[in-house]
């Protein structure tokens, strides 16, 4: 645990990070920007897992394992999403949300 920092301050920090991600997810009009906002949300949840594990149950490791799984799933999701974006750009020459009306191949 961090000297002089309580769990409340770190949870406040991750809440702010989460809602910045939600704000970007709603207001952006571009697929890659939406992906960036999703990464912010996922990272806020990872920090929450780790901090709660460290402050409340320091002799266990479950939070660390779940964080590793979240990071792996996020990496897989990003790779798939970017491949879909590149394929879409090849077919309709745009990555704006309003231009994407069909996902048919």
């Amino acid at each position: 645990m961090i000297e002089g920092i309580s769990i409340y301050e770190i949870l406040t920090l991750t809440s702010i990070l989460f809602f910045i991600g939600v704000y970007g997810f709603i207001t952006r009009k571009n697929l890659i920007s939406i992906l960036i906002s999703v990464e912010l949300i996922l990272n806020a949840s990872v920090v929450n897992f780790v901090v709660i594990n460290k402050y409340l149950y320091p002799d266990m490791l479950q939070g660390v394992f779940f964080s590793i799984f979240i990071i792996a799933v996020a990496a897989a999701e990003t790779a798939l999403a970017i491949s879909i974006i590149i394929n879409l750009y090849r077919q309709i020459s745009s990555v704006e949300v309003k231009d994407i009306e069909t996902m048919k191949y």
Partner: protein
Amino acid sequence: MERYIFYMVALIMIVSAIASVSSRKMLRSVIYLLFVLVSIAGIFFLIDYNFLAAVQLTVYAGGIIVLMIFSVLLVHHIEMRLEVAKVSKRILTAIACIIGIGVFVTTIYSYDFKVEGIATTTTTEDIGIGLLSFGEGGFILPFEVISVILLAAMIGAIVIAKGKRLEPNNDETL
């Protein structure tokens, strides 16, 4: 000392996150996301999970950011400015997010966390043994499932990004 380092890291994180979701230029937005990820790795170092910080740096800051930069360079002109939502919609969303932060923070501060005072250091060996043990509280089944998911995502990404086979334009060159 650690207190001031934490405040500095938190300030960098929030400022770069706001810049990342509000910047009009695509590539800058990705670079601001890189700052956020590196400061999250800094928080992991501060609470003494060195292995997790290393994973964060290599997978996120090393892998995902490079992937995003490549995709930005493939689909965009660098000079192009993004179109953003209407001002009224942005203000409405910002107000909703601030209300959400208020609800979260009041809930957090009204709950009484039972914080354990003992500080233990976790070695990488503990994490490896926990991930590969099949006894009580072991995580070997999710570990194997995650490896299958990564393989499936890799093959799927290759197949999707390859797309249709390119037709030869003129047969004389072949």
